[in-house]
């Protein structure tokens, strides 16, 4: 309770690592380091794998730092597992892309892991949101977030869904998945993240909300990158390692930082203990 430093060295190191990995990757990708197509593809995928793997490890590690009876353990377990599913999806996608840089099959095993991450992450966010239900009514945040999700879906209808449905070369499954991704992003990531952010706004200045703020920012970045990827990939203008990927790199980094902050603020260190 004293005014001692709240954030641990570990949290700062995770944030710094995420930024360094992203910055170095941008330089390497722009310089075309890697030689062959496969080499450059591997380099372009590395930052997503490193930051995504770090976020999954940090989420699961954080869950295990809390006792079984703590709600935070279940919330972080779901966030860790959801991020792990994304990491496995990214690893599978990278492998398929390195093996054949010209044509990655769609759908593939990677899509299974990407798709199951949605309900798992949504579960973690909703559990976090409902932990505040004794403190405030959650009706307004849920209604407002639902309205925003509906508007976003309507916006994507014109930009992305109609062109996908009109595509005569895509199979029905490809069209279905092409629409399912942004719908999942909006309704299972954006909606709970937005509702949680609105609930957290009551806790402005309070450090018990810091970790959730960071997670909300991280998942929002991941969601924006997902949607941009979907649109650009459909247009045939997406390239691995492009600016879109930075949304995933910084999003995963933010989730890892949020996990570390959760331990800092909810599992206070004993006086004199080292981080």
């Amino acid at each position, binding site marked *: 309770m004293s005014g001692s430093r709240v954030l641990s060295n570990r949290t700062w190191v995770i944030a710094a690592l995420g930024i360094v990995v992203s910055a170095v990757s941008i330089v390497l990708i722009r310089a075309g380091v890697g030689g062959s197509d496969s080499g450059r593809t591997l380099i372009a995928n590395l930052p997503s794998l490193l930051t995504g793997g770090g976020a999954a490890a940090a989420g699961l590690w954080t869950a295990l730092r809390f006792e079984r009876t703590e709600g935070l353990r279940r919330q972080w377990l779901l966030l860790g597992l959801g991020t792990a599913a994304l990491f496995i999806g990214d690893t599978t996608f990278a492998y398929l892309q390195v093996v054949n840089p010209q044509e990655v099959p769609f759908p593939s095993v990677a899509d299974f892991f990407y798709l199951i991450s949605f309900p798992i992450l949504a579960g973690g966010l909703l559990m976090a949101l409902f932990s505040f239900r004794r*403190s405030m009514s959650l009706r307004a945040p849920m209604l407002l977030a639902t309205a925003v999700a509906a508007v976003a879906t309507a916006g994507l209808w014109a930009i992305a869904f109609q062109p996908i449905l009109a595509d005569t070369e895509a199979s029905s499954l490809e069209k279905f998945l092409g629409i399912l991704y942004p719908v999942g992003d909006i309704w299972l990531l954006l909606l709970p993240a937005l509702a949680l952010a609105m609930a957290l706004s*009551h806790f402005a200045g309070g450090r018990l909300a810091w970790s959730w703020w960071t997670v909300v920012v991280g998942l929002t970045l991941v969601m924006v990158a997902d949607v941009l990827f979907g649109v650009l990939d459909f247009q045939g203008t997406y390239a691995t390692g492009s600016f879109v990927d930075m949304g995933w790199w910084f999003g995963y980094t933010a989730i890892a930082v949020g996990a570390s902050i959760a331990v800092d*603020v909810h599992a206070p260190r004993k006086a004199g203990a080292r981080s």
Partner: protein
Amino acid sequence: MSEDIHNVVLDVLTPLVGRAMATVYASKATHRPGKLLVGLTADDLPAISEEIRQSVRPFTTRAVVDEVIAEITRRVRG
């Protein structure tokens, strides 16, 4: 002493939950004993602590709540 208890609760909770929610929780907690603020004494701390526990516990750990209550008790009694 009584006004001190309300302020102590507010002071301890503010860094954790922000000023707005700290005001809500402190108000609920110091009304829990069923007395006017001016009548609160250290003997009312168990009731106040219980209210704080019920308010804050759902979104944080038992360790944090125990630390909050210990700090309030220390500052009120000390």
